[in-house]
């Protein structure tokens, strides 16, 4: 089953896929572009994994890490499908990152790799934008790079685990203005989903509603105002986002 949270005609709905659009809570089917897509969950703690694909680590001139590089993101940094993400004026390099996002379903503490999938509620797609101009060498990647308002699109759907028999063999790709710029497979993760859950839950309690962004493969590119950016994960979803410039974020007065 796939679930989404949408707003339609001034009301919130739990939506499901339907022929010709999305089915609202009350059974009506409306067009996909007639609703406002909210993030499919309101995450509790957001864990993100850096350098988790060997090819991407190489692209950034890093040795593959020996233990997962995990950073946290503010829960307010997320936005939904079809959202706009701001590119601040004067920035030289802002890139997308297509990622499989894991939604935790129950309290996990000291979980063994072999049990890890029992703690997963489902999956969605994340685009973990980064503004590299702001990279500093303190708790890197620092918040100003990665934890920005509206710079982590999430969705469109939360897909139940039962519908994702092998999350470690899904194709990922990003299209910028219709052209494929990033391609990979979750099978190339350095630390797979069970390894990440086991690693985190060994030293802290992971809980229902927590989100793990599992990293991105190679193929990063700068995006500019006006670019249409689609990040998609096979069987999970196709997440659309538009980059907008500072002119749309001008504060009047």
């Amino acid at each position: 089953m796939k679930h989404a949270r949408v707003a339609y005609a001034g009301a919130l709905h739990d939506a499901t896929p339907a022929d010709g659009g999305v089915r609202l809570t009350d059974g009506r089917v409306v067009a996909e572009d007639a609703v406002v897509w909210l993030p499919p969950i309101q995450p509790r703690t957001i864990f993100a994994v850096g350098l988790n694909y060997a090819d991407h680590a190489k692209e950034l001139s890093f040795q593959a890490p020996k233990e997962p590089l995990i950073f946290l993101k503010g829960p307010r940094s997320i936005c939904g499908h079809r959202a706009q993400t701001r590119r601040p004026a004067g920035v030289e390099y802002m890139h997308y990152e297509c990622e499989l996002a894991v939604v935790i379903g129950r309290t996990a503490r000291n979980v063994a790799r072999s049990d890890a999938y029992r703690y997963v509620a489902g999956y969605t797609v994340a685009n973990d934008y980064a503004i590299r101009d702001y990279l500093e060498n303190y708790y890197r990647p620092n918040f100003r790079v990665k934890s920005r308002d509206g710079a982590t699109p999430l969705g469109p759907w939360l897909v139940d685990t039962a519908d994702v028999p092998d999350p470690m063999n899904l194709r990922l790709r990003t299209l910028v203005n219709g052209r494929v710029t990033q391609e990979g497979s979750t099978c190339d993760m350095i630390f797979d989903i069970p390894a990440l859950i086991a690693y985190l839950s060994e030293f802290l309690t992971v809980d229902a509603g927590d989100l793990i962004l599992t990293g991105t493969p190679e193929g990063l590119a700068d995006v500019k105002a006006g670019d249409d950016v689609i990040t998609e994960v096979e069987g999970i979803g196709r997440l659309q986002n538009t980059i907008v410039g500072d002119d749309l974020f001008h504060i009047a007065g």
Partner: protein
Amino acid sequence: MHSEPYRQPPVAPVLYLKPRNTWIGNGDGIPLPPGVEQVKVSGTLGVVMGRTACRVAASDALAYVAGYTIVNDVSIPHDSYYRPALRERCRDGFCAISSALASPEAVPNPNQVEIRISINGRACGAASTATLVRPVERLIADVTEFLMLGAGDVLLVGELPDAPLARAGDRVRVEIAGLASLENPVVRP
């Protein structure tokens, strides 16, 4: 700060997040992780936001503050600030937060606040928020420039420069004049 891997002093605030698993209340035990003998305990001022603050000017920043509280920001001592220190900073119970909220009237100037920390009744650290790199108003402005804060969010203004270490059995007390105190024992689960 000019040597590797940092190369230069930080430009933006050096932020980290204390996730929900770290939150405990006044009197709750701070659990020592297995294999860890002592933890760094750092009293700090918690700025409690009263409403959504997004791209706020420093001159308006205090209007978004509901009040102030006392926080004990616990960590495992670590030397490197290069990578996010989840294993050192985000253990369960590593952020004690007083439930007492002091009104803005009770703290007329958050940049002139004395923070004192004691272990088992012995004073072992103190600092004034007058020595912060960024005054509270500037910190709120610099953070909300890119990351909005919401009602109930707590912004910790910074660690004590010489935060002490505490061991199992120690009682750690943080006091700020004008605010209630915060006391937590360090426990071996």
